[in-house]
């Protein structure tokens, strides 16, 4: 008794599952996200490479500093001072959440829950108009 009739199909299923990443979405055009650069500014609050790697760590640090320690002092970028804030800092320069943050995040499959409470510039504008 060799049971080939069961083992071979099992093996085929394994190979199909193991190569999922290869055949799923094969042939689709791969697009690398191009976040919109802010106009009128040249520098971010930290060197660009550092921002690409760990902007979320910085945001977390800002959040702790502002809310837990009350350190609201401003941060410097390109010789000017900006608020240490998600909505009024980052979004002051990176005005569009959709064309900046979301472009990368959907590619990397992260959905920061920050926007449950914080508002993007567009929403704030809409709110101001409503008032």
């Amino acid at each position, binding site marked *: 008794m*060799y049971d080939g009739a069961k083992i*071979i199909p*099992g093996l085929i299923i394994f190979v199909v599952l193991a190569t999922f990443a290869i055949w799923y979405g094969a042939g689709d055009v791969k697009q690398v996200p191009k976040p919109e650069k802010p106009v009128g500014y040249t520098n971010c609050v930290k060197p660009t490479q550092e921002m690409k790697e760990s902007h979320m760590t910085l945001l*977390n640090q800002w959040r702790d500093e502002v809310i837990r320690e009350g350190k609201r002092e401003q941060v410097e970028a390109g010789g000017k001072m900006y608020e240490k804030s998600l909505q009024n800092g980052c979004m002051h320069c990176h005005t569009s959440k959709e064309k900046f943050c979301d472009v990368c995040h959907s590619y*990397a499959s992260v959905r920061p829950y920050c926007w449950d409470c914080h508002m993007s510039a567009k929403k704030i504008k809409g709110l101001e108009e409503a008032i």
Partner: protein
Amino acid sequence: MKVLYPFIAVLALVAVALVGSQISGLQYLLGIALPYLAFAIFLGGFVYRVLQWAKTPVPFRIPTTCGQGKSLSWIKRDPLDCPNNKLEVAGRMFLEIFLFRSLFRNTKAEIGEGPQLSYGSSKYLWLFGILFHYSFLVIILRHLRLFTEPIPLFVKVIEFGDGILQLGAPTIYQTDLVLLGAVAFLLGRRLIMPQLRYISLPADYFPLLLIFAIAVSGILMRWVFRVDIIAVKQLTDGIASFSPVLPDGIGAMFFVHVVLVCTLLIYFPFSKLMHMGGVFLSPTRNMSNNSRAVRHINPWNDPNIKPHSYADYEDEFREFMVEAGLPVDKELPPAEKKEE
């Protein structure tokens, strides 16, 4: 000693990756060539091993019974522990593969006052084993976000569930912590318990240390030595779609992680890790225990070899047996005895 060499091997791999990540020629080798090679060896080796097993004949029913088999109608039977048909075998295999039922039966023996030997249930191995395997599965599935574009829905669902604690940024994944804890337990168990240390070999320590190092490098890459995930996905997705590119600015930690993972893939088909495929082929689990009800005839019996019962055998060799002083069912005829 038996843990020392695997430990040195893992450290050496980390060192190689750290050096390689600094040299751009080697970055191609470690980041692109090695993953292709490793995956090919993993897949090819896995299939080869299973086909090798499939070629091994299993002539007899050798299931282990852990409960009452099918008997008279009024005797309560245990269909999962002594399966009698394919459906019950499927149930037993399901519990084995998805819930590690054999490990759940793990016991520990203790010598108490008296001296008295007592057996108690010991569920820790099962608990940490199952935590380990399921965390590992979730982590592997989560990694699909780096290899697929668009990302399938189930990956997003798993990511959401795994990050449900919403602690910190980047969010903490429960499975990362559970995996580390469980591997630490499985390793500590072999190092601390004397009986287990005695039977543990380098081949037991190496995969545990390797998986521990993989988890640590991944966690470091996420929280301490961060890398540019967008660049990483360009590389990984490029590999999966056979159009690899090597964007610059990927941190060294990524290469450490990749080299360790590739080592695991290459090592896999040659090691005890093949139990991933082997569990499906365990003859003591996947056969129905019905040899009382069904006569199983070995399919490759030579039809020229006729059955030879013990009575026939004794008839043939009775003289020699008596001579050698062996007990026989039927004595030699008395007439012959007298002649002697």
